[in-house]
């Protein structure tokens, strides 16, 4: 899947909206070392159909919780190498507090709710990345304010 240009995406996201005063953005990139494993390539698998629905639900949830102008999520799939861009989340708002919070919320939920899986090619062979407890903890911070409709019961 094609790479993205963060600057161009942000320019498009806030184009024509002079109420926007704040843009918060996050980019996730491939590290050459993960959990003490050297990473030669990283392959991202997803679940076509559900992926789009899950990302849209996460963005809708953020829109419902905070006063934001717009939000964008781009997630690549396929084979990537160290330093490649994996994911981008951008949120525009009148004020920076909402932009930062909604951006971090979207990333935390994406990490635990969106159907993507990472497989690393390492010197010891291929390895499916294990989910991190710290990601569940990060996502659970947001639970107090109402849960995602798509969460497991």
């Amino acid at each position, binding site marked *: 899947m094609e790479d993205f240009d963060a600057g161009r995406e942000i320019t498009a996201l806030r184009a024509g909206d002079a109420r926007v005063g704040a843009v918060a953005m996050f980019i*996730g990139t491939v590290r050459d070392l993960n959990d003490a494993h050297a990473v030669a390539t990283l392959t*991202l*698998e*997803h*679940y076509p*159909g*559900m992926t789009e*629905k*899950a990302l849209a639900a996460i963005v809708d949830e953020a829109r419902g919780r905070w006063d934001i102008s717009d939000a964008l999520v781009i*997630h690549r799939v396929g084979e990537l190498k160290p330093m490649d861009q*994996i*994911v981008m989340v951008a949120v525009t708002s009148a004020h920076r507090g909402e932009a930062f919070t909604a951006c971090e919320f979207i*990333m935390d939920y*994406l*990490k*635990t*709710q*969106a*159907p*993507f*899986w*990472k*497989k690393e090619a390492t010197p010891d062979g291929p390895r*499916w*990345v*294990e*989910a*991190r407890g710290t990601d569940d903890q990060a996502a659970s911070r947001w639970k107090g304010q109402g849960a995602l409709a*798509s*969460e*497991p*019961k």
Partner: protein
Amino acid sequence: MPRTITLVYLARLREAFGTGGEKIELPPEVGTVSALTHWLAARGGAWAAELAPGRALRIAVNHDLAGGETPVATGDEIALFPPVTGG
């Protein structure tokens, strides 16, 4: 009347089961996600190993994350996969 559903296997489960999915006829006693995974685990081998109690497993019914009590109905697309690791 046959109760056909589509199963989708992703990531580690796809590799363990050696397939990306299958169409199956649901037996009459399988009415929930939990009953379905028990029924699949009874196939033994990789099925028993990957669907054993205590293995982290996520299930989506028609592209929404589901719990054990979620009903399973004719025509559903039911996906089994490990906890997600994107981002």
